[in-house]
């Protein structure tokens, strides 16, 4: 009977309930999408770096795991020292540069031969290899998203590039140009941002890494198999704060709407609260009834929010094919918990006010 009363109350004002449910849904969707977008971006970036196929990578001292954020690149002649080391089969120097025209992309400046030696080479969907200084390779996702065709001109880094080929995605970046061209354009002659190192056998990774630390004591030496685990929001300055801010914003929306909704409800139901008190309902009963009502609204909102998340993900990835939105069970559960707690906290004060209403005043409420 109590359950029936709660359900009937929830659906008594369908518009108000719908607004509350949508607010909770938006809250859940925002939380899952913001985290999904950032973790998807990191995960996808990590998978691409792993896709280079190297066993180790060497970066300048204090370089970030987010390679494009790293500052001064290293002299390219370091490669010679690396190639002399035991178990090293190939070394590919890569210069990284942000491209902000038409989006935010990382461009890899590569030596085609050494990059092929480390990565096993590109799989071409169309076109062919880099053969001229202004040639550029784009991956298939980039080509689809930007509708790039082989042979067309791409304007980036204040330079006109000729699209020489479209390659399978997953080899570090989406854009590849000759390293010398990128060095010229970025004023980093004879420099590299990272060295990808391929070993004769992956089992030698730890030994070579130890040796590298001796030879290059302050440099960052990272096994690629650990790279995915390093690509977390906590390793990117500001990202964690951004995520937390967005979650706080989402929770605030849910909290405020539930608070206002429940506050309105208790004013509207003042007389009913008085009636329940006249029947001997305790304060706890009234608080439980109102919080249960909130929990039902939150429950429906959470289901809606999860549905909206998948719908929005489908729309976003259709409109922006390069976007990866990682929806994990872990964050779906966390968003659920956040919505429930936010909703219940939002309803607590109105419920407490309701429980303390004077029954005579409540019964005479017009």
């Amino acid at each position, binding site marked *: *009977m109590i359950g*029936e009363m709660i359900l009937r109350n929830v659906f*008594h004002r369908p518009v108000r309930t719908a607004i509350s449910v949508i607010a909770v849904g938006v809250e859940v969707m925002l939380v899952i999408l913001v985290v999904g977008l950032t973790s998807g971006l990191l995960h996808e970036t990590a998978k691409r770096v792993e896709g280079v196929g190297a066993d180790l990578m060497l970066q300048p001292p204090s370089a970030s795991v987010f390679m494009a954020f790293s500052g001064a690149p290293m002299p390219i002649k370091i490669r010679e020292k690396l190639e002399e080391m035991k178990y090293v089969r190939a070394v590919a120097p890569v210069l990284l540069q942000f491209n902000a025209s038409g989006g935010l992309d990382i461009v890899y400046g590569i030596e085609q031969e050494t990059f092929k030696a480390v990565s096993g080479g590109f799989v071409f969907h169309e076109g062919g290899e880099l053969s001229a200084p202004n040639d550029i390779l784009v991956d298939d996702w980039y080509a689809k998203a930007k509708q790039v065709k082989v042979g067309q001109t791409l304007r980036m880094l204040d330079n006109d590039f000729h699209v020489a080929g479209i390659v399978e995605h997953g080899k570090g970046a989406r854009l590849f140009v000759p390293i010398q061209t990128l060095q010229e354009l970025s004023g980093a002659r004879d420099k590299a941002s990272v060295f990808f190192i391929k070993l004769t056998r992956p089992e030698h990774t730890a030994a070579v890494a130890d040796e590298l630390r001796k030879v290059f004591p302050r440099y960052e030496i990272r096994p690629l198999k650990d790279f995915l685990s390093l690509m977390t929001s906590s390793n990117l300055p500001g990202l964690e704060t951004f995520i937390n801010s967005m979650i706080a914003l989402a929770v605030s929306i849910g909290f405020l709407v539930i608070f206002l909704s429940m506050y309105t409800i208790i004013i509207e139901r003042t007389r009913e609260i008085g009636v329940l008190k*006249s*029947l*001997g309902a305790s304060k706890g009963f009234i608080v439980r009834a109102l919080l249960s009502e909130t929990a039902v609204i939150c429950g429906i909102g959470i289901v809606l929010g999860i549905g909206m998340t998948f719908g929005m993900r489908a729309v976003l990835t259709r409109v922006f094919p390069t976007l990866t939105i990682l929806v994990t069970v872990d964050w779906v559960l966390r968003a659920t918990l956040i919505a429930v707690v936010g909703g219940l906290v939002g309803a607590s004060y109105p419920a407490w006010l309701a429980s303390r209403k004077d029954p*005579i005043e409540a*019964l005479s409420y017009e």
Partner: protein
Amino acid sequence: MQNAATILAPAIEGFLPGEWDVDLILKTDNLWKVYRSGKLEVSALRGVNFEVLPGEFVAVMGPSGCGKSSLLYVIGGLAQATRGHVLVDGNDMMALSDAARTKLRRHKVGFVFQRFNLLPTLDAYGNIAIAQHIHGNGFDPHRFEVVTSMLKLTDRLHHKPSELSGGEQQRVAIARAIINEPKILLADEPTGNLDTKNSEIVLGMLRQLNRDLGQTIVMITHNPEAAAYAGRVVHMRDGVIVDGVPED
């Protein structure tokens, strides 16, 4: 009326035992209720002495503002008296906490209001059953059947208040009030919002409840015709009972 013997009432779980006229179901002793609004004080009850025996049907009459409703609310534990004592089935309301008064109301008092005060989202069935659930002993189908049959509600149970006539709504309210077999039923102008025909039906049913089930009823009214249904009528004026007090 004979004097009630004063003995020590048995302890009831959750309530305070006390000295108590065992035959009385309700007794007020020098009961005062003062409302304060800023510096203004209004005394709604000015030393009310009032007694009701189990199974009595008492009407309390008086003009508007004489303190009838205040008396009812204090007796029912919805309001706390300023001074004096209210004994309901042996429990001194003045000695009880708010939570204990709520518990006592739940177990021993039923209310019927002038404006019916049904929960609009529930049908008649739900409005009656919710009182059983709040009472805490769960749904009692036998009692439910007895009460709804007596109040001729069997065919109207699955209608919401908005689909019921005023008389039907008040019968639902009465059913809700007595479903838990309260020691005392407090009715505040139960026919105030009803036409003559429905008033007669409702009052007839209250009298039937009193006669057939021995339900103790205290009814507030300013209508002499309604009061005529009661076994005893007391009159209030300016916060005190002026006549109708049973003789010692």
